[in-house]
């Protein structure tokens, strides 16, 4: 009894080592030259990548009311989104946006595995574009391997030189495109052409240039294997219900080369061991070994396998999007029977409604009023009581506004002093000014009287803000 459980435990640990002995870990010793094959998923991937990243390149050049439509103006601490300006005061919404992004990633992954990795991720997209250039210049994978092994020649220098030049151009464009989300795009280009960028601009551009060039040009799938945390996070997000590109072991095994004439010595599965699925894989995994970290679920092996199945006259789908439940013969459950996904969707909805609330309740103006605390009040020569207030107004509109200051509550007969000429509030930042409130001493009957201040635009009274404060007076015994 005791021996048995011990050997079982030993077995569990040692299998890791056994597996390790037969497992090939891709440490990047060999460049993976994946074959490019047309197919459904190839087309989908082309479109999804462009759909997400073309706006990244073009978005900053969009103008709105003479200004950049979407601008994360870090220097002036504001975020412009068309006619909306978000100031740091409203940055709590950013946390909801991040929460929503994370939960969307989780929800999608729990339903359809690493959709992000395979179809949208910048590492996937840029690597895809880089290898596309490589394919166009150096030829197909076989030609590329040959060129790599060939001795240095004029032809090799020409091809490699052109490739790296184009890679660098794309890397530079990536750096520029990133930068212009944070400063005015046209000004940036002007400064760049005149080599007149600020120091931080050069640092960012250099980092993105080298980052893109190295990550997409050289590291490629190594980034997914050994750098990317999301690869691992998403790995644990999928379960037996998640559909993912998988090899149908029951149908495929035992695999073996297709024999002419069909005279098989032993019964054979549908897999003809043609290695097309491995050759097209951008991360170089063999999907037939099962789900693994290296698989970014891009579906390119499905295209390859389907093409082969068509050729040998077998039904498609030897490698297909399927859940582990389906392979083990369990009843596939509906999405609404997947509580984890529903929890993710619930969190997404909460975050989304928070953002909607935030955006619709931004307000064009905020007001803070700080009563002077030393002294709390001053007795004037005519016996009236005067309080001093510091007004801090944040004007979120895009123009300077003169405001009217008024108060509700407080002491009867009070006079507001300091706003006879409407104070100006500067757009996009805080403005502070001093306001005095003077009230007849006889009417000040309590130590603290609540008072609500209000500022509103002279021209547009809908631009307004209120703040509750207090009016201090002497103690009454």
């Amino acid at each position, binding site marked *: 009894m005791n021996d048995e459980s011990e050997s079982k435990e030993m077995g569990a640990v*040692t299998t890791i*080592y056994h597996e390790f002995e037969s497992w090939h870990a891709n440490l990047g010793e060999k460049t993976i030259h994946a074959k490019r094959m047309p197919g459904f998923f190839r087309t989908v991937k082309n479109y999804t990548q462009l759909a997400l990243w073309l706006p990244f390149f073009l978005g900053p050049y969009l103008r709105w009311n003479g200004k950049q439509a979407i601008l994360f103006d870090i220097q002036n601490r504001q975020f412009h989104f068309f006619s909306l300006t978000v100031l740091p005061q409203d940055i709590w919404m950013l946390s909801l946006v991040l929460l929503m992004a994370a939960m969307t990633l989780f929800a999608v992954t729990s339903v359809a595995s690493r959709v992000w990795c395979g179809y949208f991720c910048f590492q996937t997209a840029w690597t895809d574009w880089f290898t596309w250039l490589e394919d166009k210049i150096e030829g197909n994978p076989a030609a590329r391997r040959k060129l790599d092994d060939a001795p240095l020649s004029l032809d090799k220098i020409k091809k490699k030189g052109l490739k790296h030049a184009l890679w660098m151009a794309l890397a530079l464009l990536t750096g520029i495109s990133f930068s212009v989300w944070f400063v005015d795009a046209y000004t940036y280009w002007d400064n760049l052409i005149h080599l007149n960028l600020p120091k931080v601009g050069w640092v960012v551009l250099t980092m993105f240039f080298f980052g893109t060039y190295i990550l997409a040009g050289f590291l490629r799938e190594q980034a997914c294997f050994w750098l990317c945390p999301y690869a691992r996070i998403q790995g644990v997000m999928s379960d037996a219900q998640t559909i993912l590109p998988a090899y149908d072991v029951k149908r495929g095994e035992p695999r073996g080369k297709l024999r002419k004439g069909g005279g098989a010595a032993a019964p054979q599965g549908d897999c003809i061991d043609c290695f097309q699925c491995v050759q097209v894989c951008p991360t170089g995994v063999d999907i037939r070994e099962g789900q693994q970290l290296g698989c970014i679920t891009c579906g390119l092996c499905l295209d390859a396998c389907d093409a082969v199945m068509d050729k040998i006259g077998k039904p498609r789908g030897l490698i297909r999007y399927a859940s582990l439940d389906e392979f083990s013969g369990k009843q596939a459950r509906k999405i609404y029977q997947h509580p984890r996904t529903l929890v993710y969707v619930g969190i997404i909805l909460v975050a989304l409604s928070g953002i909607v609330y935030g955006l619709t309740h931004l307000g064009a103006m905020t007001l803070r009023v700080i009563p002077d605390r030393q*002294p709390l009040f*001053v007795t*004037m020569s005519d*016996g009236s009581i*005067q309080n001093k207030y510091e007004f801090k107004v944040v004007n979120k509109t895009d123009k300077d506004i003169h405001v009217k200051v008024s108060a509700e509550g407080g002491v009867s007969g009070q006079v507001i002093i300091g706003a006879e000429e409407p104070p100006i509030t500067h757009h996009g930042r805080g403005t502070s000014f*001093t306001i*005095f409130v003077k009230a007849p001493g006889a009417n000040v009957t309590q130590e603290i009287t609540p008072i609500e201040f209000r500022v509103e635009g002279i021209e547009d009274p809908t631009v307004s803000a209120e703040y509750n404060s207090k009016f201090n007076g002497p103690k009454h015994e």
Partner: protein
Amino acid sequence: MSDKHDASGVTTTGHVWDDDLGDFTNQPPKWWMLGLTASAIWCVVYCLFYPSIPVSNAHGFFKGIGGWTAINEMEADKSVVDEVRGKYEAKLKDMTPAAILADSELTEYVTRSGKVLFGDNCAACHGTNGVGTVDKQGLFAPILRDDDWLYGGKIDDIHTSIVGGRQGVMTPHKGVLSDQQIDDVAQYVKAMSEEGKDKADADSTVAAGKKVFMESDCTACHGADAKGMQAMGSANLTDKVWRFDGSLEGIKRTVAYGVNAGPDARIAVMPSFKAAGKLSDAEIKKLAVYVYKFGGGQADVPVTK
């Protein structure tokens, strides 16, 4: 696991754990060794560049070849602040206090930067934020936040007060007036403040005091209307703000012993900040504007609504 390893030709350290675990004598990776070497070089360069050896010798201590000092760094940081202030300070120099007050940007600068000046030079007597200080005899220095000014609340008046200082004068009346007369006049003065002059004049209970006030030398300084004269700094006796002490005892004391006139007199002295030489002209101008903006400053031309 087997005791063979497939990396033949690589020696182990010779230590064996758990029967078969050995340790290769492989070199650490090259990038790691480069990092280690670079860190060591960095340490040496750092120690040479900065003053790092806290042992003194005949020439002081090792100052580092880079010439870095904390004072220099602080001065460099300060110069950033000075640069920001510089453009305002340069403007202030040639402007009158009234002109500064007319410029809202400069006024803003002065009200923000004047706090330190006020705290260092004025707050000792006038209190933080000009709330006044009280000693056992009453108010030691005037409250600067109200709208009652002995010498005028216009910007130039305030400026003149700071430049030249002020010294209050009131003759003692003990001996000149009888105790009863002092008591009477004190009651009248108190009534003027509390009820207003018109009511006090009509109030028969303080008629004796009124008689003393009108017939002795009180009106010479405080005026027949008892509103004081800013030219000589005599107090307005009809308002609610008291220079020293508004209690009956306090008023009697002021009447009896005067101001700045002998051992028991009240003290009301403000030094000349120009003569003291501690403050520059620009700083005095800044203080004038700062005090004006406390809330009691009086416009040269009354603001019309």
